[in-house]
């Protein structure tokens, strides 16, 4: 017999998390807890220069005085910051692998399971990749080829030693150490992450990608990414994230800083699939991330594209400060929440320079008991002559226990600005499903097709091979959504 509409939820209920395995690998993990001593220890292990230790300590002292933000539409028990270990690295990594051949085979196996074959991938995908396992970067590929183009792509811990002037100049220049609670925490304890520098006039010859993986129990991941595109430079960068399936919650508090000088362009894409927790909301990653791009130069451009399907709680607002005249900021987002997942995500576009333009396209999908909020700010300062913004914000609901919320702030102080904001909320129409089914397409596939159609405007912004991945990820996440 024909299925009832409620069955949409039935299909949605069961969802397999294929990245949920644990790698049993010996790790060197410091005892849980946070103090100045712990920070000194992290800094010492990484043999950091004095200025960086100072940066960490200043951030830590500021953080002590700050309160966890409460304004987001997310609910979770208080986090015990003393119960988290702030540093964990695979033991075999202690002396640092010199090349991929020295990387622990178990690690390579881990990435293979995740569909990231580090070795073959050098030949096949043509994507340079940095891989961060718990607190440290374990492998960076294609270094040589990038080096020939003058591109620097390495773990930030390495950049601190190899390119101290660049790191010192830009670190914290977009997201200051005291910017917000989680950014301050990150500034105090960040362990690794990627550093990218594209010199003047260079178009990065390949996609750059970082893969983040949390493996250890009771650890947090606090990575820091810094990308600088000098005058006329271009880079497309993608990050992916997974974590094992565990019953307790784990904290991920990253900071990403992007800087574009005149005529430069950074395209930053995220496919976030941290463990979302189970059906009842047990476990899952708390994903509290600060991402900000600074269009410092004229005619520069920063595009954020994100596909957020994982994490128990997502709290992130990749933003653009459009400082340079004629600069452009873009934000394309697909966020999916189901079971007990919660997401409060969106963007900020701060128009400072003349003729600055921003585009926001946000697609939210809620199913099960998922709760999702779009929170966005478009601010046009007095100096921003002829600023333009277009915001499109759509929500799709699957089932009657989920929620979709929209909080768009618009603040305009220049009379030549033109801003448009549109938002709609709807459910997958029964007649669309029925139509597909009369064509022989099973309900589940039909839902996946309709959802992918709903997200099309965002997927087309992703690099080709990842757009396909994102579509599949969404389909997997929707498995069990209908039927």
């Amino acid at each position, binding site marked *: 017999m024909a299925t009832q509409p409620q069955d949409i939820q039935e299909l949605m209920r069961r969802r397999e998390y294929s990245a949920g395995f644990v790698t049993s690998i010996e790790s060197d993990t410091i005892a849980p807890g946070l103090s100045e001593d712990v920070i000194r220890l992290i800094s010492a292990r990484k043999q950091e220069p004095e200025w960086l230790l100072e940066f960490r300590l200043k951030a830590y002292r500021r953080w002590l005085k700050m309160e966890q933000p409460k304004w987001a539409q997310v609910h979770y028990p208080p986090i015990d910051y003393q119960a988290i270990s702030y540093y964990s690295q695979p033991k075999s990594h202690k002396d640092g692998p010199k090349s991929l051949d020295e990387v622990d085979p178990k690690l390579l196996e881990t990435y293979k399971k995740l569909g990231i074959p580090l070795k073959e991938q050098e030949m096949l995908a043509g994507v340079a990749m940095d891989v961060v396992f718990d607190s440290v970067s374990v492998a960076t590929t294609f270094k040589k080829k990038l080096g020939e183009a003058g591109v620097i792509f390495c773990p930030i811990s390495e950049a601190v030693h190899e390119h101290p002037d660049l790191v010192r100049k830009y670190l914290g220049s977009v997201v200051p150490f005291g910017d917000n609670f989680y950014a301050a925490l990150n500034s105090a304890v960040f362990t690794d992450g990627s550093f990218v520098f594209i010199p003047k006039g260079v178009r990065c010859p390949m996609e750059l990608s970082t893969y983040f993986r949390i493996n250890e129990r009771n650890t947090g991941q606090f990575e820091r990414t810094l990308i600088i595109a000098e005058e006329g430079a271009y880079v497309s960068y993608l990050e992916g994230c997974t974590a094992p399936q565990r019953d307790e919650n784990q904290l991920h508090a990253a900071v990403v800083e992007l800087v574009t000088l005149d005529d430069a362009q950074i395209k930053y894409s995220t496919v976030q699939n941290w463990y979302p927790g189970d059906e009842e909301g047990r476990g899952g990653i708390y994903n509290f991330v600060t991402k900000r791009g600074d269009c410092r130069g004229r005619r520069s451009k920063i595009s954020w594209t994100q596909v957020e399907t994982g994490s128990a709680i997502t709290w992130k607002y990749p933003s653009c400060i459009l400082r340079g005249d004629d600069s452009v900021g873009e934000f394309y987002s697909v966020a999916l929440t189901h079971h007990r997942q919660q997401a409060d995500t969106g963007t900020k576009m701060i128009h400072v320079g003349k003729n600055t333009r921003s585009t926001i396209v946000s697609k939210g999908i809620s199913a099960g008991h998922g709760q999702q909020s779009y929170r966005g700010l478009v601010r046009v300062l007095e100096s921003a002559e002829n600023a333009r913004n277009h915001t499109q914000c759509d929500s799709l609901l699957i089932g009657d226990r989920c929620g979709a919320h929209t909080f768009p702030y618009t603040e*305009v102080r*220049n009379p030549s600005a033109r801003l448009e904001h549109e938002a709609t*909320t709807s*459910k997958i129409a029964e007649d669309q499903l029925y139509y597909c089914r009369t064509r022989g397409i099973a309900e589940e596939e039909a839902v996946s097709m309709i959802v992918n159609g709903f997200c099309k405007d965002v997927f087309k912004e992703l690099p080709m091979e990842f757009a396909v991945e994102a579509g599949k990820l969404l389909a997997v996440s929707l498995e069990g959504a209908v039927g």
Partner: protein
Amino acid sequence: MTLAAYAESFEQFAAGLPPGQRAARREQLGRFLDAGFPTPRLEAWHYTDLSALGARRFSPVDPGGTAPAVEWLAETDRLLYLNGRLDRAQSTLPELHADDSSAAAADDSVAALNAAFSSGGLHLRLDRNQRLPRPLHVVAFGDTAAASPGMVHQRHRIELAENAEATVVFQFLGRSAGRLTTQVVEVSLAAGAKLTLYRLQNEHDGATLLTRIDTRLGRDSRLHAVTIDGGGGLVRHDFNMLLAEAGAEVELSGLYRPAPDAHIDNQTRIVHAAPHCRSRERFKGIVDAKARAIFVGKVIVQPGAQKTDSEQHVANLLLSRRAEVNAKPELEIYADDVKCAHGATVGQLDDSALEYLRSRGIAGAEARALLLRAFGAAILNRIAIPELRRSLALQLGLADEEEFEDAAAETLA
């Protein structure tokens, strides 16, 4: 924050109250003194800072002022309040006034202040199937003669039983600066009741006005509300609409054109608590000079409020470099079978339209005025009393005799 002056004023005010009421009023005052005026740290007051009011001193009773020489609307009944006191001579239905104000515990400090000092107001209660034969015009006229400016706190109540119908117009006319006025309107609509409510304000541009309308809508009831702001210095309006039972419908329209230095903050909150309800919200603003305008519209669809149909739109014209517009149309949705849309725009007069008018020989200020009128007419035309519509258009600087005659003809047709 020093609120000492309010505590002192209260003693003076309470002396004039019937002894039986004093304790309840004092309790409300306590609530206000504890919380103080809201500051931007509260999300609901993000854009409006009242903390400066804390240090001010307002006289609780203000005997000054004379009745205005205004041409009253024809075919209309009237209650006239002079500085919060009913002018019986000029009111056609003085019996609708009620002194008592047995307000429930106020949920915010401004409401508590209002409840503590309330001098009552309209109490309209219609029985089943009863219809108010003519629109009721409730005028609050403010004019301080005394050296220290006064404050007026009014509380109105409208209760319509099943299928009752009424049109009520609240209008503020202020002639002097420095005053503080608060108003709370409580509306309860039973099944099938229909209320048309206009809230118009042309306060002095040095006055502070804080208002709030709380409405509960029963099954299949209708509220058609229009709010127009032409004056005021620091103005804040809160609209709380609860669509409590199936089939209820609210249509809320607003137009604001703040004075050159003014601050106008409209906050609307529409709660869909039952299935098959419908809400339509449309606000427009013309913001010039150093004015600051805020619109925050919140639509909440509660679990179970299936088949909700909601639309919300706010359009702002920002005409000066020193002016500011903040808009936030929010949706909070906890049901799945809903149709909700909202939109917000900030922009200027359409260049191509100006160009077109110029090609027809209409240029400069005249062309701009024409487009502004067209912009405002979309809201003004929702006021079904032609006389009132015309006078508002004049006050807002959006009048054009012919055009509004035409519009009126269209509305009546």
